[in-house]
């Protein structure tokens, strides 16, 4: 298992290679990039800030939860922070398993939970010169708990 939150550019190939064991016939990855458009406004860049110590802890916990759901799943997940420009990779997740189902499930679990629980905030820089913190559509009113264990 590997997880990291930091300002370093994300090397997607390296993240993918981390889960390519000879027993892993299926590898699912997710790559998040900075889009050029959000809610109708042209975006020129994005600033990601984090409560770094907690973000690392929380991402590592999510990866461990995903791995626990299916034995012999390998997972690597990295979130970048700092000033990013359009097209930059902000998050990369790779999950490898003997079979594709658990690989997809693990990859999906990590991105969904990361977006729900990891204390990272993004501020969009618009073409107009304005910047604004992104407000997620369904902000929780209480501390997010780990998702319940997944069944198959």
């Amino acid at each position, binding site marked *: 298992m590997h997880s990291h939150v930091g300002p370093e550019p994300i090397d997607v190939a390296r993240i993918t290679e981390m889960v390519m064991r000879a027993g892993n016939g299926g590898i699912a990855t997710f790559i*998040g990039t900075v889009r050029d458009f959000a809610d109708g406004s042209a975006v020129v860049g994005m600033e*990601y*800030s*984090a*409560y770094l*110590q*907690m*973000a690392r*802890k929380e991402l590592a916990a999510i990866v461990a939860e995903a791995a626990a759901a299916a034995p012999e799943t390998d997972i690597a997940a990295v*979130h970048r922070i700092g000033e990013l420009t359009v097209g930059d990779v*902000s*998050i990369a997740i790779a999950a490898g398993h003997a079979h594709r189902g658990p690989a997809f499930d693990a990859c999906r679990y990590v*991105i969904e939970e*990361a*977006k*729900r*629980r*990891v*204390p*990272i*905030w*993004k*501020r969009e820089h618009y073409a107009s010169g304005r910047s604004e*913190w*992104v*407000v*997620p559509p369904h*902000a*929780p*009113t*209480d*501390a*997010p*708990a780990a998702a319940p264990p997944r069944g198959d």
Partner: protein
Amino acid sequence: MDTTVDITVRLFAAYADAVGASHTTVRVPEPATVGTLRTALASLSSRLPPRPIIAVNAEYAGDEQRITERDEVAVIPPVSGG
């Protein structure tokens, strides 16, 4: 006599902008809990939500959890990573 404790809280992102600082100190009655801190925070800035989410020592914390001056307490805006 009622005793109080001064809790230093970390602020991030929109909350840091709202308060104009990355840390602030909030006075809460003893025994201090996440719940009493959340109530006290509401009066700090009208731009904070009524009951903001709290982390204690880098973990999400529920209202019942006790806090002291020695804990690292943070107010967590709705996250928007990914």
